[in-house]
């Protein structure tokens, strides 16, 4: 009875999606900023290989953020 009223599955999916999207996107975006910061720092210290690697990590993280946002909107519009 209580399980029927509470919509447990939908509530748990909401919690899981919120945690994954809210924390995951912030983590990835922070990684993007870290990549940009490291790139600037390492370029100044003339370490081009490490700087490029940091830039690639940052760019990949920002691409994942963009993909997550687009996926979220697509999921919303296709129910």
């Amino acid at each position: 009875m209580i399980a029927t009223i509470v919509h447990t599955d939908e509530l748990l999916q909401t919690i899981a999606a919120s945690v994954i999207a809210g924390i995951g996107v912030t983590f990835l975006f922070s990684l993007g900023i870290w990549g940009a910061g490291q790139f600037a720092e390492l370029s100044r210290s003339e370490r081009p290989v490490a700087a490029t690697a940091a830039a690639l990590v940052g760019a990949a993280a920002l691409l994942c953020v963009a993909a997550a946002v687009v996926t979220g909107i697509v999921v919303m519009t296709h129910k």
Partner: protein
Amino acid sequence: MSSDVILVIVVGTALAFDFTNGFHDTANVVATSISTGAARPSVAIGFASLLNFVGAFISISVAATVAKDVVDADVITPTIVFAGLIGAIAWNLITWYFGLPSSSSHALIGGVVGSAVAAAGFEAVLAEGLVGKVLIPAVVAPILAFLVAGAAIGISYRVVGRQRPGIVSRGYRYGQIVSGGLLALAHGTNDAQKTMGIITLALIANGTLGAEADPPFWVIASSATAIALGTYSGGWRIIKTTGTRIIKMDPAQGFSAQGAGAAVILASTHFGFPLSTTHVINGGVMGAGAGKRLSAVRWGVAGNIFVAWLLTLPAAAAIGGLTYGFTRIFGTGALGPVLVTLMALSLVAAAFARRAQRGAPVTAAGG
């Protein structure tokens, strides 16, 4: 003829409610972006209005919940919906007048439930939908936003902690354009759908639509327009007070709060949970504050929100029920709703005039 007059009054009242919802909620949607310097007030407000409008078109799950899962559409009449709307608007105005942070969404659902109970008894309420889709998510969502924002800000400080502050602030300010946009989109989709649901319920009650019908396009478009115009109009009031009454956060906190709020509202909207977007956004802001320093949280605001949780549903329900009883004094025709509308308009004009003389506070009242 008489029921068509009531229907026109209901649609007009619902759209007015939607406008005030956007008007009230502008501060919640744009305050973080403005206070961190991520966007100029005029840009943030214009962007939020546009995304409120777009957001209203991306889902109808919440509208379906409001129209079909809260009260039994078979016993609902347009007058019941009208009385519920008056209950919600009256409670919003009372809380606005006294500066209490109330939820328009809870007021709307409370008002309709109260008028339905007054008209047809407790059998008119679908307890499963009310508890499972409204009350429990209403408690869970702000706490979830608080925890997600708190965890997110902790993680972001760890990741970027050793970077130069300049690049970090700039980065999160750019990020806030996206997170603020998502929050406005989320606000538009969840809040505008409540109005769509109420108008759809009135159309079903009037026999204009079938029991299982979805909101027609004109209902979606007019609800989207009303909330977007409300957001834009409310924004100019916010511009005047920017920098004096809005919470100060750093850009990382702003990004985390907006991201958490948007994630919770969008995920809930997907499953048709009609939330108080105000409570969720405040939960996210408090979580981002607590993640940095526990004493940064305005626990007084949290207490007010808790009190509002307890009061809004029963108070709006009581006003909705009384309004329905009053309209029935004049029979089942349009006279009762017309008289109530005229009285409500007079009271609103008087309240605005008095508040304008005293100076209106900027509060967290809204959706």
